[in-house]
């Protein structure tokens, strides 16, 4: 499974009631709130083995799968 599909899977696990693939902006469309962002951050950290900087946990880094993937790639690897 490629990285984007992996992130889509996490999003669907987080909020199964939403269709993330048909959204241009998860934040503007109301598909992720601040607590979802916190939960998704820990899921991303566990799955991709990275540490996401606290200052990067801002809505604009979670508005699309491309933005989330960029955030993961900019984050420090663990171990």
């Amino acid at each position, binding site marked *: 499974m490629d990285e984007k599909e992996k992130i889509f899977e996490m999003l669907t696990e987080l909020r199964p009631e939403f269709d993330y693939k048909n959204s241009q902006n998860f934040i503007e469309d109301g598909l992720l*709130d601040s607590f979802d962002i916190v939960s998704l951050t820990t899921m991303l950290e566990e799955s991709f083995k990275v540490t996401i*900087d*606290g*200052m990067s*946990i801002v809505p604009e880094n979670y508005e699309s799968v491309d933005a989330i993937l960029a955030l993961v790639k900019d984050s420090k690897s663990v171990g």
Partner: protein
Amino acid sequence: MITQFSGKKISAMLGILPQLVSNFDDEVGNYSFPTQQTMRLKKVMGYKQHRLAAQNSTVSDFGIYGLNYMLQNQWMKKEDIGAVVVVSLCPDFFVPHNSNIIAGKCGLNCDVICLDVAQGCCGFLIGLMQSFMLLDHLPNKKVVLINGDVLSHKISKKDRNDYPLVGDAITVTVIENDDDAKPIYYEMHMDGSRGNSLKIPAGGFRMPSSSETAVMKDLGDGNFRALDHVHMEGSEIFNFVQTDVAQMLLNVFENGSAKIEDFDYFFFHQPNRFMLQKLSEKVGLPKDKLFMNLVENYGNPSGASIPLTAIHNCRESLLTKNNHCCLSAFGSGLAWGVMFMDIGNLNYCEMIESNL
């Protein structure tokens, strides 16, 4: 403010918890969010259970209970006490003041200074600062510092931002002069321009409580609150901790005034596990010395969080040896600060429960 105190020590610490325990699992249905989404926060934020004061119990009730416990168990004598400092956001009344109420009910002498300080999350550091300054003028006396709140009375049960993390608790700390005590480093910052990030809009003179301020509304984020309740802008507070608080700690550890490895413990304010985790990663603090477990055990008890964290995790160590401690608090005001202080060889250190 950056300063140093000398010749002061903590000699006793007491935590007083209400008996009532409320479990996060039982509260999930109160919130207007999907259950699965809310349950994820249990692990991430550290929501498990929290302590709640009985409906009519106040900070002065807990303070009286705690101070009487100390006096009855001969932790000190009434005539040893030179001042009672109460740091809280929950006055019984506008007048008289909680410190006066407590001193009166405990039968303290009329030459005891009674002082209320209205501070929240930074209440322990502010209270220590005030106590140290008083002790300069009370050479042979002790200061009784009472911290804490019963803020669950002011938080909507339908507010998932705030209710799962609140905890009611009070601590009583005894501070005294000691010529042999090591210098205490202290730094405190305040930014009132961001004060609305954490606010109780109604109940003061600006907006007195009324039937209108008691009306519960969804303010657009899915949480139901009244103007009488605590309102927290979670994202703003999170960013504040990741920027201002982290930078203060990075500066103080980088400018040579202290090394992280020199500390035995980091006793920090306890907003939630995730926020502390991110702060510790940014500053590079050792996870085995920075406790993040208060919210899951008791909830966040505002200004009592630092002493309660110390008592819960390190009671034996505080009683039997000296510990070099870094204390840091941040929150309402906004305010943020850090203190380096040796705490240990205490005469008494205990956690008790009351039916309040």
